[in-house]
Every structure is written in C-alpha cells, then in structure tokens.
C-alpha cells in the first residue's frame, strides 16, 4: 500500500490569482488537488511535485546602438533547480542586431531542450 | 614630491570660504582654496534656510549682532552683480506667552538701534495678524513683523561666489582634507599636507604633494578648531549643533506668505529657533532644531522631527505633513562664546581664523569677507588691486523660469534646451551640461546648481539620465559616477 502524503500551501503561479492549493500525492503522482479555481492549477500542482518548472527571465548583453541590454525569456518552463545555473550561462551570451521578439538567442540551454528567446525587437 | 605654491590659502569652500575667495579675487595675489569635499558648499552651507536676516536678534556685545544688519545691507548690495537670487519676503517672529512680549520689544529696540526699518509688533487680535498671515494659529498671541527680511538660496549664493572667484583666477582644490600644517620660520611660510579618500583602496591616503602658503585663512566650519590646533592654536573650541528640517512639496507653498519664526522657548545663544519658511525653489522648509552632537553626526532622528511637527503645528495651522518630500540635518559651527571669531591667531598672525560662523553666516558672508581684507591690510599683508577683476557673473539660465517665447529662443540656440531631464523641476540637458562646465562632477553638484533631483520624486526619474550626461561630459565610466564624491557610487557594478 503506497504512502499517501498531503502537501499543503502550494501557491499556484499560473496566473495572478495565486490560488493556495493542497494536493494529495502517493509519491509518484497526484491523486487529488483542492483549492484551485481552474485546470491550470491541477497541472501546476502535478508539475510542482514531480518536476517543478519556472519561466526564466533575465537580460543578456547585446550589440546595439540603442539599447544596452536585451530582455530574454525561456520559451517554456525550465527545471526550477537549473534556474541559477542557466542565468549564469546566459552571461556569456552577446546577442546581435537586428533581433525580433521571439528570435532564439540561445537554443537548447544546458541541454534542457528549451530555447531562450528574445522578449523585444531591436532594429540596430 | 610635487609642491604647489600660493600666496594665500583659504581652508574651506563653504559660503564663508567662497566669499573670502571671491573678495581675494579682487587682488593680484595667488589664492588657493582647499576643500575636503568634492565640491563647494557641501557642508553646513547647503543645509540652511537661506534667510538673509535683518539683524535685530542677537546678544548685546557680540560681534554677530554688531555686524548683522550691515551684513544684510552688504548682501543686498553685492548679490545682484553675482546674479545671486534674492527676494524681499519680510518675516514674522511669533510669540505664545505674554512673558515673551518683552523679548519682542527688546528686538524692536535693538532693531531700531541698528537702523532696521519696517519693524512692527502685530497682536493677534481682531484678525489683524490673520490678515497678514491667514494660517497663523490662535496660540500665537503676537508677532514681530520685519520688512527687511530677505531670502536667498544658500548654495546658489556659494556657487555664485565660487564661480566668480574662479573667473578671477582663484584656484580650488577639492577632495583634499588638510591633515597637517607646519610653519617654516626661515622661509616664513606654511606647509600644508592634505589627504583624500581613495575609493579603489577604500581608505584615506595622504597626498604626495605639499602646499606652500604665505598666509592661511581658516574658514573650515565645524572643523575650524581642528585646523587651528594644527598650528598650536587651541584658543577656541567648535561645538557641532545639529539642526533638522522637513522639506514640504511646493504644493504647500501657499501655507505661509513669508517666513514665520518661532520665538525660542528659553534664551538660546545659538541660532534662531524654528521656522516655517518658504524657499525660492517653492518647497517649504519646516524646522530646525538644536542638539549638541559630534562633528560627524548628520543623522535625522524621529523624536526630534516629531517635536518639530508638534511645535510648529502650534504656530501655523494645517501644515500638510502628508506632503513631506524629505528631511535632512546640518551641523552649525558654534564657538565657546557662541560668537564669530574673526581675527588673526595669537600663535601666528599670518593665520587668520574665521570661525564659529553660525547664523547669521549667510547674511554676513560679504561683510565678513570685507572684514578679513581689512584685517589683512592692518597686518600689512601685501594686497595689490587687480584692474582685470571681473565683478560680474551670470547664473545658469533656467529653462523653467522662461516664458514660452523665451523657451523657444533657448531651444533655437541649443536644442538641448528641449530635452527635459528632471521632470519635477523641468531642468534641461543644456543646463546640466553648463553645470558640468562650471565645475559639477557629481550628482549633488548637478543638483545644487540646477535643481535636478530636488523635486518630489527626489531623483527617481532623472538620476540615471544625469549620470549618463556626467559620464559622457567627464569621460568617466557610468559606474564611477558618485552622488557626492568618495565611495558614494550609484550603479556600483556593471553586469
């Protein structure tokens, strides 16, 4: 018989509502979730137990005459524990102009399968 | 080791030192001003109400009182040629108890003795005082009205003096703290050592250069006694007395029509008491206080400022404390006998002390400088008039003070007058560049010359823009720009 644990105070970060949820887990998967106001909460609770992910946002150096930094983001969530490492990795990057919002600045960062893309368009 | 030689060295570039420097600029002597801060008027001078007092208040028999009214007249006479802003505002000195009436009468007599016109005691009866000052509280039983009270901007005054001194070949050496003075009896000159803060090493470092001077004028403010001690003169001691103020938003500018002063509770040998005081910049000063403290204590204290609120609320109704922009503290230099010390040192008459210059220091800056010249002439110190002396100096043309048409003219002359850098005070890039040309090298230097950063957002919008301009004009990396010299960095580390 698998051990059931009740996890409390999971704050969903999927939207500004920030529902405070509780989830029942058997250590491998989520059995039930309460406190969520939409489906995103369930997905979030599941991810949070098994593989917590976060959207990484930071800035990188850019070769531009009009801006000093380029804001970038991970296209999708990255493993939470890799966030600081990835931020450090991005310090080595220097983006080139022109760049459009959505352009890949660094693909497959730290072999995670996730691309880092530009949040902004810069002409020169 | 490199040597710098000057005929006369002035120690301290506050209002007193700058006034003396400017006065000395009228002569051919080589003059050097040594200042420990990164700019002029960084000490007591900038934390000041800027009132040019009429001269009725003070203790009988003191030098402070005897020159006060003359100082007022002298300031009014000299300010225009230096384009120092000056406005006749008048004042009210308020009392709360019947026993204080004799003080008002005493001041009235004293004022008349010194030739001050327009003095009148107005009782708070039948609305006569309220007519003159609508927000005066009913706690005030009477007030001494004085017409001859003027208002200037203390740092603009010091800047005017400093710039004109420079125009007349006076040299200024900033970020140089005098740490030793030796008198050479053979050469009959002083040798001055200075030090400054090395921000890379993170401690004070003595300079290798030495300054040689025939005469020294000690205008070192709260440190005047420390400087005098360097030549063995321990005849006076300076006590630092802290004054704390609130600054209210210019939305409060309708609160009072003129400075309203509060009669001190008991006889104070120190400065004037508390005041609700409009400024030329339209913000309102509320304060100050007096606490004896150490010479490096510039902190504001909650209980002291709460006391300011309480006392002044009893004098003026409706002070909008929700409109506070900031609060600050300054240190008055007060001598043992609470009087000005303007005389050659008994240890060495080539060393002239100009110490204990508390209120009315700003008022008397011109007259004190004239007195110093008189002292020097009495001592047969050679002073030859310089026919090339340039008496006039113009302040920076402030975009915000111009009409629409004149603003457009300024723009047509220089399109940087179109770039608004400080949105609260409407300061343009052109003015900031001009301030750099005139000696500003820090954020405070720009602030006190242009008002950028003095408004209600306290630099939130303009700071980085000003830093970029400083960086570009001075050729310094952005991260090396400071608020006020030494290690006061803003954008400390580049990512």
């Amino acid at each position, binding site marked *: 018989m698998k051990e059931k644990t009740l996890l409390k105070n999971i*704050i969903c970060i999927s939207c500004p*509502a920030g529902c405070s949820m509780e989830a029942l887990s058997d250590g491998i998967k989520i059995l039930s979730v309460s406190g969520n106001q939409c489906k995103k909460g369930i997905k979030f609770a599941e991810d949070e137990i098994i593989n917590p992910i976060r959207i990484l946002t930071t800035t990188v150096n850019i070769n531009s005459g009009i801006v000093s930094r380029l804001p970038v983001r991970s296209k999708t969530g990255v493993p939470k524990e890799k966030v600081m490492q990835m931020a450090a990795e991005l310090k080595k990057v220097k983006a080139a102009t022109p760049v459009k919002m959505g352009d890949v600045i660094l693909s497959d960062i730290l072999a995670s399968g996730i691309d880092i893309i530009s949040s902004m368009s810069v002409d020169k | 080791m490199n040597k710098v030689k000057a005929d006369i060295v002035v120690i301290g570039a506050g209002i007193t030192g700058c006034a003396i420097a400017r006065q000395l600029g009228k002569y051919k002597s080589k003059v050097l001003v040594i200042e420990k801060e990164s700019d002029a008027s960084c000490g007591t001078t900038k934390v000041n109400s800027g009132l040019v007092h009429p001269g009725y208040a003070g203790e009988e028999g003191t030098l402070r009182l005897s020159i006060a009214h003359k100082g007022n007249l002298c300031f009014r006479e000299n300010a225009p040629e230096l384009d120092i802003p000056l406005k006749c505002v008048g004042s009210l000195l308020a009392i709360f108890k019947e026993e204080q009436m004799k003080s008002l009468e005493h001041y009235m007599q004293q004022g008349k003795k010194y030739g001050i016109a327009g003095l009148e005691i107005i009782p708070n009866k039948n609305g006569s005082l309220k007519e003159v000052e609508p927000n005066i509280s009913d706690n005030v039983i009477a007030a001494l009205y004085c017409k001859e009270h003027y208002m200037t901007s203390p740092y603009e005054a010091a800047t005017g003096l400093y710039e004109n001194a420079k125009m007349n070949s006076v040299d200024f050496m900033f970020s140089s703290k005098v740490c030793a003075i030796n008198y050479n009896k053979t050469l009959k000159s002083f040798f001055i050592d200075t030090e400054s803060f090395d921000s890379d090493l993170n401690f004070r470092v003595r300079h290798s250069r030495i300054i040689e001077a025939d005469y020294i004028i000690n205008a070192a403010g709260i440190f005047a006694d420390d400087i005098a001690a360097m030549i063995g003169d321990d005849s006076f001691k300076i006590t630092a007395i802290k004054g704390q103020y609130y600054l209210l938003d210019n939305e409060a500018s309708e609160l009072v029509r003129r400075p309203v002063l509060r009669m001190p509770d008991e006889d104070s040998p120190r400065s004037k008491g508390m005041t609700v005081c409009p400024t030329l910049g339209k913000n309102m000063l509320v304060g100050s206080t007096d606490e004896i403290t150490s010479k490096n204590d510039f902190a504001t204290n909650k209980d002291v400022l709460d006391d300011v609120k309480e006392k002044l609320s009893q004098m003026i109704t409706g002070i909008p404390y929700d409109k506070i922009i900031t609060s600050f503290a300054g240190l008055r230099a007060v001598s043992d006998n609470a009087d000005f010390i303007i005389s050659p040192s008994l240890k060495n008459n080539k060393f002239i002390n100009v110490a204990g210059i508390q209120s009315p220091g700003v008022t008397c800056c011109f007259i004190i400088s004239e007195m110093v010249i008189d002292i020097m002439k009495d001592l047969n110190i050679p002073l030859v008039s310089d026919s090339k002396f340039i008496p006039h100096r113009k302040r920076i043309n402030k975009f915000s003070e111009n009409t629409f048409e004149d603003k*457009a003219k300024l723009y047509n002359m220089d399109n940087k007058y179109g770039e608004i850098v400080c949105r609260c005070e409407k300061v343009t890039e052109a003015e900031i560049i001009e301030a750099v040309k005139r000696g500003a090298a820090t954020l405070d230097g720009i602030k006190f010359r242009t008002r950028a950063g003095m408004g209600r957002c*306290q630099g939130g919008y303009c700071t980085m823009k000003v830093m970029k301009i400083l960086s570009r004009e001075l050729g310094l990396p952005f991260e090396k720009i400071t608020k006020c010299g030494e290690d006061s960095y803003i954008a400390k580390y580049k990512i």
Partner: protein
Amino acid sequence: MEKIHTLQNIKYDLTIIGGGPAGMAAALKASESGIDNILLIERNSFFGGILPQCIHGGFGLKIFNRELTGPEYAQIYIDKLRNSRIKVMPETSALSLFKDDDFIEVITAGKNTGILKIKTKAVILALGCREKTRGQISIPGTRPAGIFTAGFVQKMVNIEGYLPGKDVIILGSGDIGLIMARRLKLEGCNVKGVYEIMPFSTGLSRNISQCLKDFEIPLFLSHTVTNIYGEKRIEAVEISETDWQAGRREVKSGFKKYKVKCDCLILSVGLIPENELSKTCGIDIDNNTGGPLVNEYFQTSAEGIFACGNSLFVNDIADNVTEDGFSAAASAIDFLNKKDGFSISSYSRANIVPGENIAYCVPQKISLLKDVNFKIRARFPLKNALIEFEQINFRQKIKYVMPGELINIKISRDYFKNLPGLSSDLQINTAGSNNLKINNSGASDFKIQTDGRGAVKKQNNTEFGKSFSKIPDITVRIKEST
C-alpha cells in the same frame, strides 16, 4: 534641421499624453475607430512605459490568454503603433495643459520636436505613476548613496545593465520589491531579506512563492527600517519590529532593535499616480488615489480631458490598464462626436464616498447613465467579506479581500434607481436609451469656468458633486459578512 519656434497651427483632434500601455491602447482604439488626427506624446525614446523594464512574466493572461513578459506585451502594441497612422512624438515632454472653452492647449518640449504649443479638442492623460521615496516616509538616519526605490533599481539592472550593490535589504513586500528580490538574486547579489511593516504582505501570493520561497529569501512581516547608517555610502540599517494597532503603526517597545549590514537599501513602499501635468490645468484630484476624480467615462473635472492607466489609480494588471485605455478612448471618441452624456452637467450626478476598509474606489463620480465597473482597493485583508454600496442597496460577497489585489465590481444601472431623491429630479428611461430626462432646470448651466488667464478655476469637489443636491453620496464599504 529646420528650427521649430512657436507653431500655433498645430492641431490635433485627440492628444494622448504618455506612451505606456494605457496611452498606446487609447491611441490604437481611437485610430481604429476612425479618428484621423491623433497625437501620442512620450517622454522616453521608446514606447511601453514601465513595461520594457518589467522583464518578468504575468502579462497578457487576460487579453491574449498567454503568459507574456512585460517587453513582449509592450512589443505587441508597439508593432501595432508602427503600422498605424497615429502621429507619435517620442523624446517629448508635456510641460503644461491649459483648457479654454473651445480647445485644450498642450505645451511640449523635445530635443528633436522643439518647443510647441499644440491645440487639441480632447486629451487623454496616461502619465503613469511614480514611486514613494525614502524622504516621503521619513526613515530617520543619514542620507548616504545606496538607497533606491525598487523601480529605479529595476531600470538600472534591466535597461542599463548595472547593479546597485551586492548586499541588499528590501523594505516593502509589494510586487515590485518581490520581483526585484528574485532579479537581484539571479544576478548574484546577496539579498538578505524582505522587510514588511504590515503583518501581511501586499504582494501577490504567487510572487511570495516564486520570488522569495524559491530562492530562500526570508520575509519578515511586521518589521521596518528605523535608522540608516553610513556617511557617503550606506553601511547598515536598523530593523525594528512593528506593532499594528487599528491603523497606527508603532514600533514595539521593549523589542530589540537590530542592525543589519548592507550596501544597498531598496524601497518598495508605494506608488503614486503621476499628476503634475493634470494639476497645471486645475483638474480635481482625489486624495485617496492621488489621481484625478473621474466618472465612469474616465472623464475628469475638465471637459474633454480623460485619464486612464496608473495615472488614474495604481493598477495591478497591465491587461486591465489596456482595457481602460480602450474605454477612455471610446469616451473621447463619443465626446469628439458630441454624443449625449458628455456635457459637464452629467459628469457627476452622484458621488461615491469610500467608507470602512476602502483605500479607494474608482470612478468617484457617476453619471447614472450606464452600468459601472468599479475598481476598489481595500485597506486590510479580510476573509468572508461583504462589499456594500449602501444607498443603492447593493451587496456582494467576496471570499478573500487582499489589499494587493484590486476588486472589480460591476453594478448595473438599474441599481441606481434605488437612490432616494432620484425620482423627483430624474427619470431614467427604462427603454434602454442613454438619455436621462432632466427635470431640474439650470443643470445645463454647469459650465467649466476659466479664471480669465485661461487656467481652469479651481473648483471644490462639492461644486461638482452637488449638481443635484437631493441625490445623496453613495458610501461603499467592506465589512465582515454575517
């Protein structure tokens, strides 16, 4: 380059001041609706307002159903702006507003645009907001370098690429403080802690989680900074515990104060709507919001001048700011087309007065002509709360009331029929027309008055509030649900 002097013949139908999300939305909506002659003034060289420095996510969830970063959200509208026929003037600051009977005059200054006098028929103010400073909250102590507001640091880090220090203390647990805690940690700073004067955090709970918990940054509730040390550069702060008592914040006596070393103090202690320009024109300001008094049409006390975005009240979510920008533009368009309901007489038929546990409620004036979307901010958190608009008998239950989250309440026009005094003065046409039949003559005399020099005469709030004296003020409050 041609030197521009005074140009009296610069005329626009609609001038929008501020090119952030509110201004861009307003400009785009007006342009889409067929207004040809639109001017958008922006003081920065870039558009987007505060968004380009908000590199974190959480934007666009409502409008685009996606999680976007601030710059991405801004870029969408910037691209639309580029493809429109809206005349834009970046690097241009508006210096003053002047309202006459026939037009509104805006004086601007710009390095490349010159000093201009622009005549316009309608203005939308989208000026954004600024941050509360150390001086305004009177933290005692010295005044060294190293004390910054959170938005200022955000700009320094994200736009300029510099760090303000390495050992950081953050005062204030509002969202900006929390976001910057994470940001600085990510850039290698030692974020020693976030200190919050209240016993609750004013930021979104998801930010406590993803900014503080994720990075093990401690949060100290009921603590504040009571002294600052350092001569030219900050060296340490003094932290004291606070004792919240029915609205009065007191430092707990007997509790040990302690010093924390730092080289940087970041303040996230409040935002204030920017209204210096509005004040040059005598527009009535609400002391609760810090922004103009408006009705549900975003109409200020000066006819033809509308306000939206953070300049009206501090918003939480950019998507809502965009929608308000659209709405303000719709009102401006109706005004330009001289639709009914825009004479100043209908500006304010009833006042909304904040009562218990209400920090502010917008709009503060209502015309009684349509349904109203109220935006309300509470002072204190409350569970199982009831929001009540007393005089119209409107009540709504709210499970969780948090000061950090604006409450949206939609009240249908029908509710206003409950107002006492209404039937004798007004009849609401229930057939659905927007017209109100007005019995009370003299109401149309209610014209905006200028003082001869052109500045709008400063009117008391009551002047605009008492257009129909028999209609009482409507009090809104939040209380416990019984």
